[in-house]
């Protein structure tokens, strides 16, 4: 029996002395040593020549793959003798003195490859490998936990698919006939070799008694060679994919190709989610490099067929079980979850410490509890918890009139669709089957709605219900959290939270179904909260805050685009102020503030750009939902000051206390700079409202000029006023007590009492009035069901709904669904596009020509429905029209007709093909921004 040690070295001077010592000190000495040095740039070559002699050291090709280096070493060996073994040693693998002895002891005639137990070098105790195999996804499976200590728990001699080349003892004949694949320069060649050896009928056995210490220099990226390059992850992954594709059974190859491709894409997404774009790129380029060279795979498979002697089935048991990748996936998810939970707990602990430090005596009850008191106990004694529990109850009480079946709709709110899919498809499609068809770009608020509905298991109605039912507690909670940051007293913050939370109902936004204002009311405090962190101390925090701000801003602006220009003005104001006051702060703030605004604007693409060619400025002034301008009265200065954008809110005098207190907030000197900041925002909101109050925008969908709902700027005014009062009200009692008694005490006390009473009165009003307004629960459509059935079978069988009279004019709607749903309001075809239909309806209401029915038919109208009261001329005209037959209309007083011929729709020139891709890009942008805003950053750990 002869053993030749074959040492391949590349820049291994750090480890070589120890490795050579290890080889020399073997209890069963090797019979010969051959070293191949592949043009090391350090002194590895000299070291080897010094220890082994000139002849034993060969110069390998620079950049030669491992296979070539081994081949070079084999080429100089004397002719093979019987039972000759080659012991492959890496320059970073150090065998234990008895390693070779144990390996040889396990040798048997049918065993071709023997492998040692690999332990970590230099820790020496951690297990690295006891034989390896490969999973269906290309993962290298060792069967060990990461960092597992060697306590002999795996010491069992067993057959494996492959062993690491570091310390591999292989029969020379097998090594020479099978050899390493040149396509695998560094990584994965051992797996491939083992797999091919197994297919050739050889056994590979791991011998745990033989121990080799391995530094895994290349794998850990400690040693960068031109072969691994910087992208060692890519090389590794490429090798795994290649190995699977060339060695696996040919029958499942197409399936494996598809699975590996999809799996890789999922991994790319996963890497992106944990903010590891480098790995994601590696993953992607590895797939591309393997899949774009099918010739290599074909050649590789042909080569393997030549050496194979046993069927795939014999090898299968050596491969990793099929369920293994899924278990890894599960482990990953649970790891992430526990990491998030741990981090949240850390944050809470940190916050608690800060709270205790800052609040002093106010939180006494909470403080007196032991640290290990449960969450429930803490909640029970917390006044904040009681207040918010009360708000939740009041929310249900306030919406008592809207509990029941049917969809919440009315006013500006259209009924939500049946499922999240409707919103997804509306968001992605470039052509909407609404009326005569529309290419109006989908509004950006569809994406968050669709996402939220998907999270609610597709229950779109639940999203709308939760939003409207719990708008008050949600807004109040956000405002409370924000005010906790900008005031020093939780009393003030709680007061401000409740006062702000009431705004959606006091202003009438909930009653009118103004979903845009309701969402902004919930989002605005969090936007402000995130924006506070733009002035953080560290660059990393500022950058994350910038993305977080951008996301909140984009979310708010998606529902009420006016928020974005307002934010731009605020940002410009802040930067301008910093520039004039503090150049250092300006330099720190400039980038995060600009990034926040510009990223938010970018996240609103493609709508932000495309909409200019459709609706122009008006789409930036209108909110999500119907314009419903009939519900907006003319605004007086009183309405603007007290935050009443429409006619449905609470009596305006209920908000007088806030306005008065906000004015008096300026009087307190020690908080004035912060109050002034709030006042700047307040004045901006006032200015915006005042400018827009008299404006009318032209609605493309109807061609009419309409008033604008100014809920968002007024929300800004009220929110800023509340913030100013909350800031100035911090510790107002102590502040007043400090001074000698004078005029200040009674005035201050009166204003304070007024301010405190205001939200209390608002709450009482809300509880009593029950948020009665335009929104209600009801069916989606009053159109007879047989019509909606027909149109759902064939989209060409549209339903033309005509309302109105000769004197008041007619309004019509061409339905291709049972009714309009939330989101459709923004993509209705323009009045210009509907021109032909308007003409036909005008004819029907006036004097229809002979071809009126034919015109209807070619516009895709199968039914005409006129809800009561029906204009007599219209119904008479339709009755007398050839080709139109009366149909049954169920509601009393309403009329319906059906066209005798089948309606058709031409489907040419639809356009909007690019839109889905743009929206997909937008989604990607949101994900990326989310990743950058996320609090965790995964370090490249290996």
């Amino acid at each position, binding site marked *: 029996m002869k053993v030749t040690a074959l040492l391949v070295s590349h820049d291994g001077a750090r480890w070589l002395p120890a490795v050579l010592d290890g080889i020399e000190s073997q209890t069963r000495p090797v019979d010969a040593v051959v070293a191949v040095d592949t043009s090391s740039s350090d002194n590895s070559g000299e070291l080897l020549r010094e220890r082994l002699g000139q002849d034993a050291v060969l110069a390998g090709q620079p950049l030669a793959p491992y296979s070539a280096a081994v081949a070079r070493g084999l080429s100089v060996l004397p002719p093979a003798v019987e039972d000759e073994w080659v012991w492959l040693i890496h320059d970073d693998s150090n065998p234990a003195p008895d390693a070779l002895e144990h390996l040889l002891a396990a040798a048997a005639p049918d065993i071709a490859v023997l492998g040692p137990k690999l332990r970590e070098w230099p820790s020496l105790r951690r297990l690295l490998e006891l034989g390896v195999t490969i999973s269906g996804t290309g993962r290298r499976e060792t069967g060990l936990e990461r960092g597992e200590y060697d306590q002999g728990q795996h010491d069992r001699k067993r057959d494996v698919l492959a062993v690491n080349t570091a310390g591999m003892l292989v029969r020379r004949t097998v090594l020479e006939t099978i050899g390493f694949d040149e396509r695998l320069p560094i990584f994965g060649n051992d797996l491939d070799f083992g797999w091919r050896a197994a297919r050739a009928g050889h056994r590979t056995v791991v011998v745990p008694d033989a121990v080799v210490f391995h530094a895994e220099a290349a794998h850990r990226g400690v040693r960068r060679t031109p072969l691994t390059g910087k992208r060692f992850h890519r090389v590794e992954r490429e090798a795994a994919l290649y190995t699977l594709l060339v060695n696996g059974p040919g029958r499942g190859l197409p399936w494996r190709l598809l699975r590996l491709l999809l799996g890789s894409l999922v991994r790319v997404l996963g890497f992106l989610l944990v903010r590891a774009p480098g790995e994601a790129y590696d993953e992607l380029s590895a797939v591309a490099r393997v899949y774009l060279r099918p010739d290599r795979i074909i050649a590789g498979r042909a080569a393997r067929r030549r050496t194979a002697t046993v069927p795939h089935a014999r090898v299968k048991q050596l491969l990793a079980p099929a369920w293994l990748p899924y278990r890894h996936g599960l482990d990953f998810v649970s790891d992430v979850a526990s990491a998030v939970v741990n981090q949240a707990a850390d944050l809470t602990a940190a916050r608690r410490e800060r709270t205790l430090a800052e609040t002093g005596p106010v939180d006494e009850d909470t403080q007196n509890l032991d640290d290990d008191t449960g969450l429930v106990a803490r909640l029970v004694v917390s006044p904040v918890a009681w207040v918010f529990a009360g708000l939740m109850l009041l929310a249900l009480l306030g919406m008592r009139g809207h509990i029941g079946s049917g969809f919440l709709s009315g006013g500006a709110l259209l009924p939500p669709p049946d499922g999240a899919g409707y919103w997804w498809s509306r968001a992605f499609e470039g052509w909407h089957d609404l009326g005569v068809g529309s290419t109006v770009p989908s509004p950006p608020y569809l994406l968050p709605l669709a996402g939220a509905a998907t999270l609610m298991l597709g229950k779109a109605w639940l999203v709308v219900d939760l939003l409207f039912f719990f708008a008050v507690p949600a807004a109040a909670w956000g405002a409370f959290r924000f005010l906790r940051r900008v005031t020093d007293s939780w009393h003030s913050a709680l007061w401000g939270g409740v006062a702000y939370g009431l705004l959606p109902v006091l202003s009438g936004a909930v009653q009118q179904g103004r979903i845009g204002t309701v969402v902004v009311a919930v989002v605005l405090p969090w936007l402000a909260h995130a924006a506070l962190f733009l*002035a953080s*101390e560290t660059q990393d925090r500022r950058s994350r805050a910038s993305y977080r701000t951008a996301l909140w801003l984009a979310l708010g602006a998606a529902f009420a685009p006016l928020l974005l220009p307002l934010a731009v003005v605020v940002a410009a104001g802040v930067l301008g102020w910093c520039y004039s006051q503090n150049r250092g702060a300006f330099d720190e703030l400039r980038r995060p503030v600009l990034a926040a605004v510009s990223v938010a604007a970018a996240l609103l693409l493609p709508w932000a750009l495309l909409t200019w060619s459709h609706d122009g400025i008006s789409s930036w002034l209108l909110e999500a939902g119907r314009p419903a301008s009939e519900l907006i009265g003319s605004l007086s200065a009183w309405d603007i000051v007290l935050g009443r954008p429409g006619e449905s809110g609470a009596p305006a005098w209920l908000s007088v206390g806030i306005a008065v207190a906000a004015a008096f907030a*300026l009087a307190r000197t020690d908080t004035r700079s912060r109050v002034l*900041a709030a006042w700047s925002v307040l004045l901006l909101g006032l*200015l915006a409202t005042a400018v827009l109050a*008299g404006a009318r925008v032209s609605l493309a969908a109807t061609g009419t000029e309409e008033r604008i709902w100014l809920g968002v700027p007024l929300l800004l005014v009220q929110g800023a006023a509340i913030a100013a009062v909350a800031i100035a009200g911090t510790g107002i009692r102590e502040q007043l007590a400090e001074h000698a008694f004078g005029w200040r005490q009674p005035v201050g006390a009166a204003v304070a009492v007024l301010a405190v009473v205001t939200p209390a009165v608002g709450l009482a009003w809300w509880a009593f009035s029950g948020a009665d307004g335009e929104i209600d629960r009801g069916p989606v459509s009053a159109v007879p069901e047989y019509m909606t059935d027909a149109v759902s079978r064939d989209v060409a069988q549209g339903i033309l709904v005509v309302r109105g009279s*000769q004197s008041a004019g007619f309004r019509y709607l061409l339905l291709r669904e049972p009714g309009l749903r939330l989101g459709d309001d923004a993509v209705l075809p323009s009045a210009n596009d509907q021109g032909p239909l308007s003409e036909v309806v005008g004819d029907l209401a006036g004097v229809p020509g002979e071809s009126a029915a034919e015109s209807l038919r070619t516009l895709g109208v199968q039914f005409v429905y006129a809800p009561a009261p029906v204009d007599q001329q219209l119904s008479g005209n339709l009755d007398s*029209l050839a080709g139109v037959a009366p149909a049954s209309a169920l509601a009393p007083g309403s009329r319906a007709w059906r066209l005798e011929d089948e309606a058709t729709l031409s489907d040419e020139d639809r356009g909007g093909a690019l839109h889905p891709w743009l929206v997909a890009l937008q989604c990607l942008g949101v994900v990326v921004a989310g990743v950058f805003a996320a609090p965790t950053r995964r370090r490249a750990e290996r």
Partner: protein
Amino acid sequence: MSDPRPTGVRRAARQRPTSGVLLGSTAVAVASLVAAAILVLVTPSDPGPAPRPSAATGAPVSQITLGCPRRPNLPEGVSTSFGVASVVGDDLGQDGSVTGAPRLSRGEASEVVGSTERGVRLTGTDGLAQGLVAWRADTGSSTAITECPSPRASWWFTGLGASIDHESTLTIANLDSGPAVVDIKVLSPEGEIDVAETGGSGITLAPGESRTLSLVALAPQNDELAIRVHASRGRVVAAVSDRFAETPAAEPGFEWLPSQIEPARILRLSGVPAGSRFRTLLVANPSDLEAVVTVELAGPSGRVLSPDLNQLSVDPGALLAVDLSALADENVAVRLVSDLPVVAVLRSVVQGGDIVYAGPAQALTTIAGLPVIGRSTVHLTALGEAARATVTAYSVEGESVGGTTISLDAHATDTWKAPRLAAYVVVEPAKATVFGSIVYSGESAVPLRDLPTTIRIPAVRPAA
């Protein structure tokens, strides 16, 4: 967790309290002033209700359908003719055609070949659809003239009867290409009569079908009736012929009843000729409440208020007949003002026993035209203020053969006799508004109405 607040925020806490009072008041004042200034300067006055960019507009009539009723039981010695005229008027179209009178051009009048049995359907297209008037004339021993109306869904007739001395016949025709379904409602002095049993509801008319219904069959044993003909589906042309004898032995007179589209609060009845013996005002109240009706007469000298007639009260759903025979025998018009919408007509029995119905007349705004048949007298009455109207008579060829300008005091009625040569007269209000009728041989009256020249195209827009 570090405090992310901007450093400037903190620094503000160290202000010296001495300047606090002054600064505080100043800050409150300045900020409030700025806010007030923004509001006062920039809040514009309310722009008012939104403009209606697609408001109703007018367009020339380009198609019109007129239907002349058949009359099955024509009395002896009476012959029927149908006529059509495309009246002379400014800005009326020249092109186009009229079915039934293929050679008709602008300004001309023509006889229409028609069948008494089946009635006549006329369709004017393009220019000739404007200012088109068609009529049916039954002349001979009795004179009964009626205008041929366009199909519509709602018709009201007052002055019908279903007894031996007073018998009315309703003719309904469906001129359209779709079916029509008609319901009839009958009001009597005792209230509404249920006619569902007698075939008064759900009358289905096939396209082109015409049907005659006798009121005797519908609501027998009623001397005075008012009816509503309502097409719940489609449109119809309805006409009522009336046969009325003042006394049981007298020879009955024949007439076509004037129609009313909907009940109204103000009604102006024109066409009460001087020399009529009996005058009966018939008012029906279709509503559920009692209607209080004021009656005013407009004679040649102006308004006449009769103290005993000043206020009539009409029971809900009932018809009231009031004898006006005691009033001065003049050419008068009647104005009814009611607190609830009513329908009304005034029946006069003239020498020889023939009857004349004065029906609700429209306040004229554009151009009105009616045929000249026999001795034709134009009756015009001014509305609330002094008015002036031009009346021009035209020959069959459209040549002017006479005319006048009638000036009227407020609430005064005047008449003008059309020349015998004339084929039709055209009435155009020149100052203020007038209403009126043409009385034929003192035996028949047809109210004047604006001829369709333009139609209102309603505002139509997509809903959002």
